[in-house]
């Protein structure tokens, strides 16, 4: 018996609906159909009237969730693909993210973003949006990389009184498996050392954790021990765990699937350069997707995003500097 990343997301929503009558799910095709990825499969039947199809109106989907949250509900809204959340961007960043600061009324909504690239996804079904949402004050941005985190962090997201952008990676949906759902979890906001090492710190999150772990494994034969940190939430960013690791290793590589300009990798490096300059034995480096739209053809796509091979190559450069 095993459970996939996607099943964990479905199970978390099922449990949230069962445990809390204030929870409801709203989004395109989430009802009887069960969602484009089946993340809400059978939930409409199990919880009548609480898992509802919406029109193709991302702005209204988020706006309605905000109003419902003010009235005490705990809405989970699904953007069919993270890319389409730009059509709801205004409600997310101007209404949800500012509500507590302006009015002292919290806004407990969860916006689920099926994120990241998959084979053949192309420019508009592949994007990683975490940097955009992290830029705005007033949002929590989660980027779970494991089945366990997909489950426990989504449950925590529903319980948090503030708006949570939940970036779940589509590439992990079906192939990433765990033996069972977790009974306990690290709280959001805390990074996890996914692999201990002494020679360099590799900070990453979401699907890039798995490319990074593979790269670290590949470098063992060459005698290198890479410490891999899974950020889990990119906002808040657990700077302390990163700095403590860099203090041990003296070298830093940050890997992200998102575009390079001004993103999570840039933020991590800025903080380490500012707070831990003296800890570094080499200039900190990053590896991101290329600065173009996400391409359609599998060969282009595989070269566009960081892979284990590319991560390993970048690590070798860093380690010999």
């Amino acid at each position, binding site marked *: 018996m095993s459970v996939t990343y996607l099943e964990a997301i479905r199970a978390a929503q099922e449990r949230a609906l069962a445990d809390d009558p204030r929870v*409801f799910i709203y989004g395109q095709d989430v009802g009887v159909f069960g969602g484009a990825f089946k993340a809400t499969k059978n939930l409409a039947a199990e919880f009548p*009237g*609480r898992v509802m199809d*919406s*029109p193709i*109106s*991302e*702005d*209204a*989907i*988020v*706006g*309605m*969730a*905000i*109003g*419902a*949250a*003010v*009235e*005490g*509900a705990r*809405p989970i809204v699904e953007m069919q693909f993270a890319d389409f959340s730009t059509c709801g961007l*205004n*409600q997310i960043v*101007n*209404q949800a*993210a*500012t*509500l*507590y*600061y*302006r*009015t*002292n*009324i*919290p806004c407990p909504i969860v916006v689920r973003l099926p994120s990241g690239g998959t084979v053949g996804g192309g420019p508009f079904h592949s994007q990683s949006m975490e940097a955009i949402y992290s830029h705005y*004050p*007033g949002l*929590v941005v989660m980027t779970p990389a494991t089945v366990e985190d997909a489950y426990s962090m989504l449950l925590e997201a529903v319980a*948090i*009184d*503030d708006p949570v952008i939940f970036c779940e990676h589509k590439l992990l949906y079906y192939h990433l498996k765990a033996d069972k759902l977790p009974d306990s979890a690290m*709280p*959001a*906001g805390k990074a996890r050392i996914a692999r201990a090492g002494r020679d360099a710190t590799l900070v990453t999150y979401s699907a890039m954790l798995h490319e990074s772990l593979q790269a670290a494994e590949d470098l063992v034969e060459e005698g290198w021990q890479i410490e891999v940190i899974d950020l889990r939430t990119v*906002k*808040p*960013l657990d*700077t302390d765990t990163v700095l403590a690791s860099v203090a041990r290793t003296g070298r830093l590589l940050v890997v992200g699937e998102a575009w390079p300009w001004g993103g999570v990798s840039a933020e991590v490096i800025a*903080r380490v350069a*500012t707070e831990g300059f003296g800890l570094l034995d080499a200039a900190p480096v990053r590896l991101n997707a290329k600065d173009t739209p996400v391409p359609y053809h599998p060969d282009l796509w595989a070269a566009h995003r960081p892979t284990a091979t590319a991560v390993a190559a970048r690590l070798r450069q860093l380690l010999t500097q």
Partner: protein
Amino acid sequence: MITAASDTAIAVESMDNPDIARRAFRTMQLSRAVEDKLASLYRAGMIKGGVFLGKGQEALSTASSIFLRKGDIFGPCIRDQAGRLAFGDTVLDTLRTYFGSAQGPMRGRDGNIHRGRPRDGYYAMISHLGSMVAMVGGALYARRQRGETGVVGVTSIGDGGTSTGAFHEGVNFAAVEKLPLVVVVANNQYAYSTPNNRQFACADLLDRAAGYGIAGHKTDGTDPRACLETLNRAVQAARDGHGPQMVVATLLRLVGHGEHDDAGYVDAGLRKANVGRDCLDVGARQLLEDGLATTGELAAWASEAQAEVEAALDIAQREKGPDPESEDWHALSTERLVDGYFDAEEE
């Protein structure tokens, strides 16, 4: 603090009660008094940022919320000073928000027309037009899900705001869900400087109601009696379960977009036409015609409104603004999820 919208509104919500017209007119007078004061404070340089007034729209705005009860929801727009007061906002909180007082509902964190008390059903608009439609709709959705019936939400917008995608998405969603939402469209002929003929191509904004499959109501926004009758009907229909209602009122903004704007672009012909009437003049005439007030009463009410504004100004002006030193500078309610890095960086 919501007071006027609560118990008193329940008592006088019927149009059969002649007091509704008197109360509406007094609200219009109070709104005009506070806005005239805001305009002079602006000219005197005593208000930071803009001043955005609803002069000429008081009748429609008052009618928009006067039939609401405690537990209903009101999501006003830019030119709804009168409707805000009718729903229970106060002159004091109005001035506090313009001054940025720490005692005001927005505590200096937001200003002017961006004020509300969401816990009381009084939502604080953001500047992005159309955004409040889905939000008020979502609130009604949650209330219904909780088993509450008879709740109504009113939100308002101008002719220009109807061109936004958010407006379309919000109204369409409300229509699909058959929510008890009243959308009040004040067609004041100009969106800032842009005239109707550069804003939309349908013959009448009311045509849109049919497109959404919801009820539409047309009214003369310069006529307080007509506004009250129309909004009474629309709010009641929503309350009775007949789904969203769209009210389109025709009127003219009698001021600039903000006090920085002399509105020189407004067609002089419109100012002289019926649409350019001042609804306060029309309302006063109607009360006298209907024997609902005497000239002495009208004058006394105006003095009382003036006195209320002066008293509130006296308080608001003496209140302190927020203290940047004691602000926590956190945008999340969950302390443990605040990215503490930026706090530490400043230390």
